[in-house]
């Protein structure tokens, strides 16, 4: 029993030490963002601020607010549209399989692993031609299209758990593809929509490559603006940390309140569902 107590203690100590390591960046981000610039000296980096100073938040907010709103206008329609498309595709590819549908599914999946650099040059040419370059609708379109594979995968795996018998008996009762979707699938999809919605929200909010190549200045989402903050000549670390926190806040809040669904999405996204 004594060995057990010792090993339990060691286990907890290790877990606490590792937790501190994982929390350290957040601690530093918070304390740095709350200090005035003259307190951001090297020796004081790890110390708590002498007094709370919110001026860096004010500055970060002034600089980032328009881009924050751009991200909101981008992420909400893009998440909704791609979840809807994914639900339709997942429904057909799990409950209305036809010859070759599994291969179509696999071919779709490839799209979620490609480095987006490999489609970027044609994509930008296309967006210019279509008049969507440097617009939020253009970015929405891009995220919906390249979100198809992952949302389809998540919904297909999700619908696989709906018993085949339910669909069959509905068919026997004369229900068609629409009715079954409307009356059986949709009501059972609430969790699916939450998981996919959270996943897409987080990914689109955090995305950088499309954002930085497709939009310029006033159209840019928050992550590009945050990156630009550090591009300025004198790096104001307190403002930058405040900006990082502002930029991270929406996805952090989603994680704090709906973390369970976020992790579900994470596991569903690794193909074998």
């Amino acid at each position, binding site marked *: 029993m004594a060995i057990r107590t010792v090993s339990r203690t060691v*286990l*907890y100590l290790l*877990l606490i030490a590792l*937790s501190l390591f*994982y929390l350290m*960046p957040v601690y*530093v981000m918070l304390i740095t963002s709350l200090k005035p610039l003259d307190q951001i000296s*090297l*020796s004081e*980096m790890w110390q708590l601020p002498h007094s709370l100073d919110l001026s860096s938040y004010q500055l970060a907010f002034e600089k980032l607010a328009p881009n924050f709103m751009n991200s909101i206008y981008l992420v909400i329609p893009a998440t909704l549209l791609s979840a809807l498309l994914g639900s339709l*595709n997942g*429904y*057909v*590819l799990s409950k209305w399989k*036809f010859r070759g549908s*599994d*291969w179509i599914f*696999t071919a*779709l*999946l*490839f799209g979620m692993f*490609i*480095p987006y*650099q*490999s*489609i*970027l*040059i*044609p994509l930008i040419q*296309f967006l210019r031609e279509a008049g969507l370059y440097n617009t939020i609708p253009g970015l929405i379109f891009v995220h919906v299209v*390249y979100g*198809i594979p992952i949302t389809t995968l998540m919904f297909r795996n999700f619908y696989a758990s709906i018993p*085949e018998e339910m669909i*069959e*008996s509905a*068919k*026997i009762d*004369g229900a*068609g*593809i629409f009715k079954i979707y409307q009356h059986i699938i949709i009501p059972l999809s609430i969790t699916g929509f939450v998981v996919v919605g959270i996943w897409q929200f*987080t990914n689109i909010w*955090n995305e950088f*490559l499309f954002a930085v*190549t497709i939009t310029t200045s006033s159209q840019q989402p928050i*992550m590009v603006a945050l990156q630009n903050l550090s591009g300025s000549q004198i790096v104001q670390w307190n403002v*930058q*940390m405040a*900006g990082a926190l502002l*930029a*991270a806040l929406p*996805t952090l809040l*989603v*994680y704090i309140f709906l*973390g369970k669904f*976020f*992790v579900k999405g*994470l*596991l569903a996204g690794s*193909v*074998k569902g």
Partner: protein
Amino acid sequence: MEPKVLPSLQSGSSLAVSAKKRRKWNVDHWLSFAFILPSVIAVAVFVYGFIAWSGYVSLSNWNSLVPDLSFAGLKNYLFLFKDFRFQADLRNTLFFTLFFILAVLFMGLMLAVFLDQKIRGESLFRNIFFFPMALSFVVTGVIWQWLLNPATGVNLFLKKIGLDSLWYTSVTVIPGIQWSKIQFGVPVAVIAVVIAAAWQMTGFSVAMYLAGLRAIPEEIREAARMDGAGEFQIYRKIIFPMVAPITVSVVIIMAHISLKIFDLIYAMTGPGANFVTDVPGVYMFETTFRGNYYANGAAISIIMLLSVAIFIVPYLISSRKGES
């Protein structure tokens, strides 16, 4: 696939219903195509079509602002493999991928085993290890740029114990064997980026391993204990082999993330002095959109795609087969 009719309902009296159903099924069959057609076309054009177009651009002379799609053969690829920056990129990607995957696997398995010991406050600990995944690589890059700044950050502690590191500003390559144009070896600066990336992504492997550990029935452990196996033996002989397939999934997912990494490095270090932290993703972005070398950029992107496809295509095909 023909719809499976429940046997009990397939009695003779429902022949008329069955005929009606078949007609209906045919209509629905076509409707189901219509449902997925937009997505199939979109992916065909925007993924496969655009990849083909990028491939074509990579074989062209379009290395200025004005598109010039005349055929250049493999000129751009040959240029890249002789290019100092691209050689450095390949070296950095190799070591970044290697260390990143090892760190994520090791930390992930260790933390998952710890969390699986029926500990108190498990969900709190779990959330602490998971939350960085909800952050953007850009945010991670900004924070760790400050933490691993050579003048500040963790160096304030390390200096006290006699260690002093330049982190991502170091240009040292260990051992630095001259190979073609570059010094081959581990660039010290890459370690800094690995720490930041592993900090963010460990949660993924913890979640995967934990799900795997939880799926192992308690009876198996009980039976092993009955046979007199110690806890370490149970893990080594029974549990680790059972979660081995998860390792394959984690390696593939992490490899494809690391081979196409861009935002973390762009936000945290940029290409670095002597390109010690440069990766193909950053080079592609800068040469294409800052330098207007479109054909070179396309060639880099195609090399990135191929390197990812080596991992992903077998993975997709095998999980396809495993299902049917």
